[in-house]
């Protein structure tokens, strides 16, 4: 088992009343799964992903990741944990504008204190694999959306994470580019990477082997 959420509640106060963002979410994810989270805007998809990614906190419930209870960990340990095991892919790519493709992909390795020669080899492999060797010295602004997202995924994969969290990875792409990205996810999943994606699109959700429906912060039956 990769991770487990038990009765997670997350709320914000608005005018003295609790507005629930996540309402009693329980979820168990095994290694090698490909899960799609679906639901309309504001249903809590992103919040759930952020909680799983340890970027966001929750008020109640338990969260275990690889047998570590995340809810009791200190910030420092938590960031160590996600640095090690989780890769993020964003709708808006979130590449660093000042860095080249090569450097964007390299960045997570820098923060893991990996030696320069090893970094070179790893990044070169990744560029090769995604067929973007020729673009390695370009800056994000010089790439198309699809290419940018490829770089984003390459960056998420570079540190060999167990889990990839993708928040609407195709949201800013046209359908053809979107399809390519989803195909890529499928291949990655077949190689053993666990993937959780949030999506609007029924078609994209079908790539997963499990679909979770959210509405107003609660899981609903499909």
């Amino acid at each position, binding site marked *: 088992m990769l991770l487990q959420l038990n009765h997670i509640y997350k709320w914000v106060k608005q005018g003295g009343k609790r507005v629930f963002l996540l309402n009693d979410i329980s979820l168990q994810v095994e290694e090698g799964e490909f899960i799609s989270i679906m639901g309309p805007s504001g249903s809590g998809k992103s919040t759930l992903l952020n909680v799983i990614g340890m*970027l*966001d906190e929750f008020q109640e419930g338990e969260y275990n990741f690889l047998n570590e209870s995340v809810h009791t960990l200190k910030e420092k340990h938590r960031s160590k944990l996600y640095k090690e095991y989780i890769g*993020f892919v964003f709708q808006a790519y*979130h590449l660093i504008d000042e860095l080249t493709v090569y450097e964007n992909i390299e960045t*997570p390795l*820098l923060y893991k*204190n990996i030696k320069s020669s090893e970094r070179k080899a790893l990044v070169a492999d990744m560029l090769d694999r995604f067929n973007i060797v020729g673009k390695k010295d370009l800056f994000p602004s010089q790439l198309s959306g699809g290419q940018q997202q490829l770089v984003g995924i390459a960056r998420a994969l570079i540190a060999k994470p167990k889990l990839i969290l993708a928040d609407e990875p195709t949201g800013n792409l046209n359908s053809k580019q979107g399809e390519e990205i989803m195909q890529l996810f499928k291949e990655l999943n077949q190689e053993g990477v666990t993937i959780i994606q949030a999506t609007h699109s029924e078609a994209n959700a079908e790539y997963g082997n499990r679909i979770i429906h959210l509405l107003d912060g609660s899981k609903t039956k499909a």
Partner: protein
Amino acid sequence: MLKNYFKIAWRNLKKDKSLFFLNSSGLAIGIASCLMISLYVWDELSYEQSFDNADRLARVVLRGNVNGEELKEAMVAAPVAKSFKADFSQVKNATRLSMVYNPQVQYKNTSYEELKAAYVDPNFFELFHLNFLKGNPKTALENINSIVLSASEAKKYFGTENPIGKRIQFQDIEEALEVTAVLEDLPQNTHLQFDVFIPMQHNTRSTSNSWVTSGFATYLELQPETDLAQLEAQIPALLEKYIGDQVKQAIGISYEEFQQNNKLGLFLQPLTDIHLYSDFSPNTELSPTGDIKYVYIFSAIALFMLLIACVNFMNLATATATKRSREVGIRKVLGSAKKQLITQFLTESILTTTFATLLAIGIMALLLPAFNTLAGKELALLDFISVQNILLLIVFILGISLFAGAYPAFVLSGFKPLAAITSKVSRSGRTTSLRSGMVIFQFVISASLILATIVVYNQMQFIQHKKLGYEKGQVIVLRDAYKMGSERVNAYKEELLQNPGIASISRSAFVPAGETDNHLRGIFKNNTYLRKFFFYDVDEQYIPTLGLELIEGRNFSTELKNESDKVILNEQAAKILGLGENPIGATFERAADAENERLTVIGIIKDFHFKSLHSEIDPLVLAYNPYGGLIVKTKNADVAGILDFAEEKWATFNPEQAFIYSFLEDSFEETYRKEEKMGVILSIFTMLTIFVACLGLFGLITFATEQRFKEIGIRKVLGASVTEIVALLAKDFIKLVAIAFLIAFPIGYYLMQKWLQDFAYRVDLELGQFVLAACITLFIAMATISFKSIKAALQNPTQSLKTE
């Protein structure tokens, strides 16, 4: 990783060029000013430090108050050195120096003038360890007919020949003096600026036993660990022992009685205090002194400039935080620790600071000559290049980077990753109020400096236009004319009077500004000692030539013989003598070598400022005793032509001497050179400070408008006018500037009040000056703000609303 930090930092700086420019130019100006002033302060503080035993040397000075006359003299009587050494075990050695006035040297038929020469005791070089290039410091002045020269002076006379053993003729000393030693030129930073030293025996007054006349700079070398204050406490007893009798003889009362109504004593001044902590009358000092007050003022300005520049850096960096927040967020998601982000931001600040420092050194190299002229220094950048100073500079750069960069680095790296990515970190209350605080700080300093500049300017104007009681315009002083000899001066004077452009000529060595003779004499009334008065030895043309106003009695006259015991007083002297309603014909006595002379008052002149406006008008006596050079008052005519004429005639009377003249008006301005320079320096640094503060303000308003881009669009759609939007943007900043006034003005008031204390005649601090300072500051701030905000307000609203 380190390389990566630098690479990223470099790209970030390159990307935001305008921010980088604002940051580094502001810092560079701050650092350049700071370093430049540091050189100045360093130099001022280094005086006398070149003597390895400086901490054990002290100068004997005289302070006192006799019948209301304040005495502050850096020279003391001839026997002081001898007695101190004999009576105090703490005094290891004592030596004296006295100036040679208008020295002249002759070698092989060439005569040299304008040299700086001193009589010194033979043991002088045992106290002052000067660097001897040739000769032995112990024996150099043992022989009465020896002379010691500085290297450059020796070169002047002998060129490349070996000076040792050469004989030169010194002034009126009959036998030629033999060069026994050559010194390395004395450093700039000592009050002993001499090139020629001759034995003290040649000064006839040096063997005098009188404790009443002075004229000897006297230095003591103390035993190690001597407590100055303790030694000073023993001086009064010594004084009583030695001068009790002399006091009684001179003024007829015992020393004890004398001290009851008067204060007079000798004190010790550490050698290293001479340059910055002396307040002695300038004519008793060997060379012009500095003033610790100006060292403080300039240090404060340097510090403030640097602070303002750093504050700018912090302000701009935190203000742009929102721009960088997404990057921070992504990096954190990618696994960056807070520490790594801090290092990243500090690297940027180190790069900026290093660049700014290099720029600053460039600016300094360019401006140092101008600064030297202003400050009267000979500072050179090259003199300061040493391993130690380069290390110091690196520490300085790191210090500034840390100081300016630490706060933004901590703020930025503290963002929560998720909030940072989604740009929810808007203007958080904490950084905004801190930023406001920093803007206030900058404008407190700017406004205070503006106020100070205005007050200094007003005071200088006041001095220029103050009614001095004499006419300083169109007066030419030919002080050196006395050198042609009395008869020839008078003939020369008659020749000059032929020129119709000349109104009158007076013969006197006394002028109210510039180089002048000084003459103080003890005054007795009914044979009781009163105090010392200043005496001007003048002729009958003096009053008209200087435009003095005779308010009672008559001027001197050539028709009446026997004017030598007649005097004209100023009002102050008449008051002190208590002459009342009918001063004409009153008499008093003046101290003389044998018997006191009786003087009769024939006239009263209106008080005039015969000394600088720093001091109150002292009592003055004009006595009829024409000697010295000439003072020429011209009519409203061609002054250049008159000077040509005077020079031509001069050559016929006195071909050996150069024609040297000065304008009284120039000399007058020279008197206030220190303050004027300080005014100029102050205004320059004020402008720089304001400029740097405005750079910061400009940066802040830029980001404020960027942040409110959308709000401005919406407001315009809703019908806001351009002025309303500018007002909206400006309001926040103007409020801060207004708060700055409330802090700046009390501080400015206090400090300027202190500065003005130096002048006996001064302007008052008025509301108007504060209002003016406020207006100028506000105007500058407004101009800076409007530049950006008007542009923002003129923007087409659809553009700003389309962005989301």
